[in-house]
């Protein structure tokens, strides 16, 4: 139920209004301005509407409006003045002070009810909209950070070190920039710009995507040539951004360009790629450079161990990693403790927490775990099957309709002179040549017609060996026949070995069961008979 606060010094007036509204709303009453303000501080924006009289003891309606404005309540709570005041000056003043509406006495119950309802609806719609906009903005902001960090992570992924470099550089950049604005207003930095720098700091090494992995991950010292290639990543990265076919003028792209290009420049001009000096390097790139160096020192790399926080600080301050802006060195030392906490993982940047989690999940492939396991099991079964079939030398096949793939056991493949896997066998020329197009279509139709409750079918399989005339060469052919086809004729001097081909159709698990393929195995005609003796063939189902 929506809540209405009625403020009037006359009990008579309050009870009249209350009686009109209490069926639809939860009604609170205050008998003067002071009471009203204290109730508002208690209930705050839980109050949905205030009906306010003007002439009251203690604190009048206009003063209540002033207090509401001061406390920010007027943004969320509509105020309808109800007064017998006819003095236009007073009415104007009430509007000026932020009253939403004005009802003069004598009022009509119906009109009061409708105005209250309209005002409450209007405000709650507005509140919802404001909430939606805020949510969307937050989501978009979060998404864009996430996307940038995923991209950065992909670049880093080739660098077989841990994927936290980008996150750390962002956190250190954040700390250093906020420290910097505390000690100087020399640089044009506001929260929007700082946020943009932090966001785009993730892309500082984007150019490394073009550096060969052997160089990126080389454990030892790089040769001069290799180092030259490695150093090209800042120029290459910025070039990639400059070459974007879209959004070139976006502040984000420009900022990313600055950082990617100049995050290896140094204060004394001895950095690369352009050898810029001092503040020729944008402050964004200067800060990221320092953050990058600190993280490189304190992290373990394929070519070095991790230095301690204190050692890293000392090395940077002494200029062992090149010269930095003295102001930034001051910032680094001022914020040393905060930086140490982040480094030791006690206090990660909140903003990046979910991004970091996400990246971690991506690495673990957590969401893919179950299907991964299934695939693994499947692979295992296949391997087992192949192994046993290889040893027993049996001839078997598997056909899956979805993939249109025929898999033959090694022996079968060898005997037929075919590869172990065959795509689209019904249209495969070699396969057609062996069995005949018509036969294949015939088989295919028979398999498809098998019902799930009786999925097994047997064929006679003949291996026919003929001596070529005037030669010792033996030509081997194969024939598949349905026992129902009756007697089969072979060339006179051919040697024929008879097998049984036992096949079973496969179906989907889900109802209605649909045909998905067929498996089959060749067994010697005689032995198959033995095996089959006393065994109901439906056991194979």
């Amino acid at each position, binding site marked *: 139920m929506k809540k209405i606060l009625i403020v009037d010094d*006359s009990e008579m007036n309050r009870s009249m209004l209350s009686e009109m509204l209490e069926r639809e709303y939860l009604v609170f009453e205050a008998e003067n301005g002071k009471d009203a303000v204290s109730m508002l501080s208690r209930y705050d924006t839980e109050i949905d509407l205030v009906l306010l009289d003007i002439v009251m*003891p203690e604190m009048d309606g206009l003063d209540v409006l002033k207090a509401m404005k001061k406390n920010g309540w007027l943004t969320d709570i509509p105020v309808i003045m109800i007064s*017998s005041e006819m*003095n236009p000056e007073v009415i104007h003043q009430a509007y000026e002070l932020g009253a939403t509406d004005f009802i003069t006495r004598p009022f*009509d119950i119906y009109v009061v009810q409708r105005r209250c309802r309209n005002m409450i609806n209007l405000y709650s719609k507005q509140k919802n909209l404001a909430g939606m906009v805020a949510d969307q903005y937050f989501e978009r902001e979060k998404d864009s950070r996430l996307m940038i960090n995923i991209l950065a992570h992909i670049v880093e992924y080739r660098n077989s070190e841990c994927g936290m470099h980008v996150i750390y550089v962002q956190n250190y950049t954040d700390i250093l920039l906020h420290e910097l604005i505390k000690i100087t207003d020399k640089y044009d930095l506001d929260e929007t710009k700082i946020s943009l720098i932090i966001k785009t700091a993730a892309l500082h090494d984007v150019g490394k995507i073009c550096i060969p992995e052997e160089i990126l991950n080389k454990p030892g010292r790089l040769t001069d040539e290799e180092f030259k290639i490695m150093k090209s990543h800042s120029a290459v990265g910025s070039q990639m951004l400059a070459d974007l076919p879209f959004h070139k003028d976006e502040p984000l792209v420009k900022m990313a360009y600055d950082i990617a290009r100049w995050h290896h420049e140094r204060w004394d001009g001895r950095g690369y790629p352009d050898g810029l000096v001092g503040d020729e390097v944008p402050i964004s790139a200067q800060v990221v450079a320092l953050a990058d160096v600190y993280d490189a020192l304190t992290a373990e790399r394929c070519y070095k161990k991790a230095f301690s926080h204190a050692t890293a600080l000392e090395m940077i301050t002494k200029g062992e990693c090149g010269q930095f802006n003295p102001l930034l060195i001051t910032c680094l030392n001022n914020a040393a403790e905060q930086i140490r906490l982040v480094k030791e993982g006690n206090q990660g940047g909140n903003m990046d927490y979910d991004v970091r989690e996400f990246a971690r999940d991506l690495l673990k492939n957590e969401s893919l775990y179950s299907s991964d396991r299934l695939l693994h099991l499947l692979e295992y079964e296949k391997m087992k099957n192949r192994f046993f079939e290889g040893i027993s030398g049996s001839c078997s096949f598997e056909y899956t309709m979805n993939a249109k793939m025929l898999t033959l056991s090694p022996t079968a493949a060898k005997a037929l002179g075919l590869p172990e896997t065959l795509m689209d066998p019904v249209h495969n020329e070699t396969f057609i040549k062996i069995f005949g197009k018509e036969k294949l279509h015939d088989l295919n139709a028979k398999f498809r017609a098998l019902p799930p409750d009786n999925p097994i079918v047997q064929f006679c399989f003949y291996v026919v060996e003929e001596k070529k005339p005037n030669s010792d060469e033996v030509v081997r052919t194969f024939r598949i026949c349905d026992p129902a086809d009756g007697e089969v004729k072979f060339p006179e001097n051919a040697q024929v070995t008879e097998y049984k081909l036992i096949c079973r159709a496969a179906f989907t698990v889900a109802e209605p069961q649909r045909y998905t393929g067929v498996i089959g195995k060749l067994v010697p005609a005689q032995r198959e008979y033995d095996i089959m003796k006393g065994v109901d063939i439906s056991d194979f189902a």
Partner: protein
Amino acid sequence: MTLRECYESIGSDFSAAVTRMCGREEMLLKFVKKFTSDPSYSSLVSSFESGDVATAFRMAHTLKGVCLNLGLDKLRQSASDLTEALRNAQSTSEVQAELYNKVKQDYEMTEKAISLLD
């Protein structure tokens, strides 16, 4: 005496008052009966007579407001006249005393009519 007769006897528009209450005569009756126990009149009397102009102004204003909504037109008019005479006043004057006596007169008439209600 019915409510309508009561309104007519004190020179007030009964229909308009009932319409504002969405036709709910019983509600109007309830508030009219309650009117005589509303303290704004007695407060007006005590503050005016003791020369407290500021409070008198406020009380006249409140009385006017109540009368407006109940449609007690005659008393509303005299209360309104007194309110404007008291607005921003420093002390009581003869004009105000005259208007004040008119309010008293109208109030007593109204009070009497209400006491005669069924």
